[in-house]
């Protein structure tokens, strides 16, 4: 170690010498310049279009809002640096029909999507979505996304769960990472401004109209209202309600969905959470569906490819809800390995050969080594389902501009619910959703902002004042942080045990009272850190509040939906019940903060509702 430091010191002194030699040549280039934006100001700006979230959806929204009307000021808010999003974690691919030569079409993609979503999909939205998804693939290619390629130099696709044709376009097994960075590069080159390290606390709605948002500058601790003509919520999903049994990043705490719910927008289909079949046993990180798309086997403790019992024609490539239930059934019926939360089945890709694994599945090989000390080349991976995607989200009334029922408020990506995915999302549709709905929301919000004026912002000021008081009240030099983490752990475990893959009325009733008890404990929490500077404990406190609220909404809808559909399996109501529940659950919050449930009919246009078989 000493040697390394010496070498380092030597090199640095060498650099200083080099620098001295260079003097006189680099004057002009030293324009390291005052090109910095207003982003580091402590004073928060007003802007025309305020986008919360910097994943694929937020970034596409920003670029397209600027394109739609270059005169508008567009700002992207992120509680981290823009490339830390859940988008980067998607692996397998991005759906979209670009090759029509083998009988594929937008309609067929839409049909697979509707069927995959167990007919809880708004069919009109799904058709528009699939057309836009196909177009988005070529657009991403044009923007510089490096796709894996066919012999003809076209974008390469692989088979994926629930799809009747090959249309899951990919870039090795890092498609999400590549999409995220393509979108980020485009946003950076297009001059999008970022407010990094800023957290959404609330959305201001007054006189039925969106006024802007209350943001906390995490760096300084300043909590301030930001007025905006239109706001786009693209904060991603809320699967962190399962805390450590989810594949999503720590930051997927549904902040935007919770803020929208508090601001009076309905939380649509909150009970619809997708469980991905193949999560890492320890920590829930994902092993991509591409492992099965490329030909991987699922094996129980008899060495049997058990999917033949559950989806004989599709086998391992059945849709995610069916495969996840199959694995949990094998575990419950004693045909798995391990016990309790440590139970697992095997995912075997060894027969694909070392070369293919290294070339096409490098990321999952790395994850296997990192979390379980398993090299997929030599050993089968140990896996168990993990919460993965939020089909539910902020009620978006209109696909054409991704507007919510509140004028000036838009939503896109996983945070939104325009009912493309219904009760179960198809693998590969999430990245398409992010880039497609992001773009539409950006254009919609820009069109709205071009005509709108700023509102007075009174409600925003009140909310900012309340949050400032709350920070002072909650943080102090005393208090017990362990209590906060205990609530978060218990929340995850209770949600997993009672609102996981198999649900019953008894479990959900017990969860409901469990959540009330956790809420009561949350209200008395005190965080022993009064420092306003980058107080991550307070960030976690705010996130936990959101997770509790969203869990309650999901629990309410899960109790009320007395049928099994897609990812929502009620063991006490095993059949799908189209007569009563071919409807979206709509959870809203009333004036006194109580959650209520309502229903909205599913839009059915060209596809007949039928039994879902694979």
């Amino acid at each position, binding site marked *: 170690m000493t040697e390394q430091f010496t070498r380092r010191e030597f090199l640095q002194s060498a650099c200083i010498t080099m620098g001295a030699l260079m003097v006189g040549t680099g004057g002009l280039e030293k324009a390291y310049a005052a090109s910095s934006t207003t982003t580091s100001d402590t004073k928060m700006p007003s802007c025309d279009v305020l986008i919360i979230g910097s994943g694929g959806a937020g970034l596409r929204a920003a670029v397209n809002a600027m394109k739609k009307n270059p005169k508008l000021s567009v700002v992207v808010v992120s509680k981290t640096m823009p490339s830390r999003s859940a988008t980067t974690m998607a692996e397998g691919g991005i759906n979209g029909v670009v090759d029509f030569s083998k009988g594929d079409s937008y309609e067929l993609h839409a049909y697979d999507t509707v069927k995959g979503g167990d007919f809880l999909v708004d069919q009109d939205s799904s058709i528009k979505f699939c057309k836009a998804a196909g177009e988005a693939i070529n657009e991403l290619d044009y923007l510089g996304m490096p796709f894996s390629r066919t012999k003809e130099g076209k974008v390469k696709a692989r088979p994926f769960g629930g799809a009747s044709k090959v249309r899951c376009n990919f870039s090795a097994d890092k498609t999400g990472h590549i999409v995220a960075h393509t979108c980020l*590069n485009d946003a950076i080159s297009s001059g999008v401004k970022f407010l990094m390290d800023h957290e959404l606390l609330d959305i201001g709605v007054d006189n039925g109209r969106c006024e802007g948002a209350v943001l906390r500058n995490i760096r300084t601790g300043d909590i301030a209202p930001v007025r905006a003509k239109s706001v786009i919520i693209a904060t991603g999903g809320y699967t962190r309600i399962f805390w450590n049994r989810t594949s999503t990043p720590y930051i997927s705490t549904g902040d935007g969905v919770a803020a929208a719910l508090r601001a009076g927008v309905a939380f649509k289909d909150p009970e619809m959470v997708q469980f991905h079949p193949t999560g890492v046993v320890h920590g829930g990180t994902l092993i991509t569906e591409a492992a099965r798309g490329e030909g991987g086997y699922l094996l129980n403790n008899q060495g049997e490819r058990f999917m033949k019992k559950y989806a004989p024609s599709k086998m391992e490539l059945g849709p995610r809800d069916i495969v996840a239930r199959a694995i949990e059934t094998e575990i419950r019926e004693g045909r798995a390995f391990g016990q309790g939360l440590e139970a697992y089945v095997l995912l075997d890709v060894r027969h694909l050969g070392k070369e293919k694994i290294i070339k096409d599945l490098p990321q999952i090989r790395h994850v296997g080594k990192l979390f379980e000390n398993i090299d997929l080349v030599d050993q089968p991976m140990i896996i168990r389902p993990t919460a993965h995607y939020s089909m539910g989200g902020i009620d978006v009334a209109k696909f054409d501009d991704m507007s919510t029922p509140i004028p000036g408020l838009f939503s896109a990506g996983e945070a939104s619910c325009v009912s493309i995915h219904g009760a179960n999302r198809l693998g590969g549709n999430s990245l398409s959703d992010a880039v497609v709905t992001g773009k539409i929301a950006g254009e919609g919000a820009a069109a709205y902002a071009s005509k709108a004026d700023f509102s007075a912002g009174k409600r925003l000021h009140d909310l900012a004042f309340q949050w400032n008081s709350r920070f002072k009240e909650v943080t102090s030099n005393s208090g017990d942080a362990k209590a906060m983490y205990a609530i978060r752990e218990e929340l995850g475990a209770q949600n997993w045990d009672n609102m996981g893959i198999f649900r019953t009325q008894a479990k959900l009733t017990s969860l409901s009272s469990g959540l009330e008890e956790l809420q009561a404990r949350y209200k008395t929490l005190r965080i022993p850190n009064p420092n306003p500077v980058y107080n991550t404990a307070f960030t976690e406190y705010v996130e936990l509040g959101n997770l509790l609220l969203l869990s309650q909404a999901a629990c309410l809808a899960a109790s009320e939906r007395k049928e099994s559909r897609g990812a929502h399996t009620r063991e006490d109501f095993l059949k799908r019940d189209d007569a009563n529940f071919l409807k979206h659950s709509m959870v809203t919050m009333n004036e006194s903060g109580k959650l209520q449930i309502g229903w909205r009919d599913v839009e059915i246009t060209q596809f007949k509702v039928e039994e879902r078989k694979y």
Partner: protein
Amino acid sequence: MKFIIERFDGKKSYEQTYTVEKKDIEALTLLSVLLLIKQTQDVTLNFTASCRCAICGACGVRVNGHAYIACDSKMTELFEEYKDTDTFRIAPLANFKVISDLVVDWEPAMENLRKIKPALVAKSEFSVKEGCRQNQEEFDRIIKQWDCILCGVCASECNKLSADNSDYMEPFVFTHAWRAANDSRSKDPMIHVKPSVTNGLWNCVHCQECANRCPKHISSADDIASLRALAMRKGLNSGVGPAHAKSFYTDLVEDSGRLNEIRLALRTEGVSTALRAGTAITLMGAGKMNPLEIFGGHTIEGHKDLVKMIEAAHAANKE
């Protein structure tokens, strides 16, 4: 085991030592250890993390002076690397402004990324509607650089940035410029090369530390060297850096095959600057150069082969 963490609360810097049992952390990653400390010992400790599986780049920190992404660093590997030390020193990434504890400011780096226009500008035969065409080899050529997760490890290791960041950018910025410039779909690599040149491309000191520690095994140093060659091929020849490179080439190929350090200095800096800087005198004093060789030295053995090798490399590069 002791973890000495360098802290900053927005006003003052200090060190804080946390003690954990080795058996409790043996199976963990460094990120899990940081989470354990935060959740059980000190909630005021600040750091950033998001994906926990080495794809989002949020959790870069330094361990005993060197940069790692915490979620991708198993403690067992760190024990091995640091020979069973009982103390680790954890610090924020170097060459970034510290905001709080292990949290650093990414804004200047983002502004640097802006300078090199990281997005592809596609050739005119391609369109939004039809997309592009690229063969697998062309894809393979750039895909390694697309592994970059903006974790900042290379920047933390960069000796040039430590010495003087006023005329240089983070190594990953050059890697972003490289991948855009070398994409077969790109209309004009100069869109990315020019701003690289004007923002410090020639100031890299080849220490290779960025390449040594990149968690994705990308060599920004190679990308920088490759961008320099591209810049010169495209006629960006003026300035100290290109002159320095050309001097190497002239000596190795056209002259003796031996690097003539006196002429290198003269060609690079020009006669007056070199004399003022005393380079030649210093070199002579160090016994590195016979002053008479300013007029040319004796040719090395196997010079023809060397020239052939360089020409072959040249040809390969042009393909």
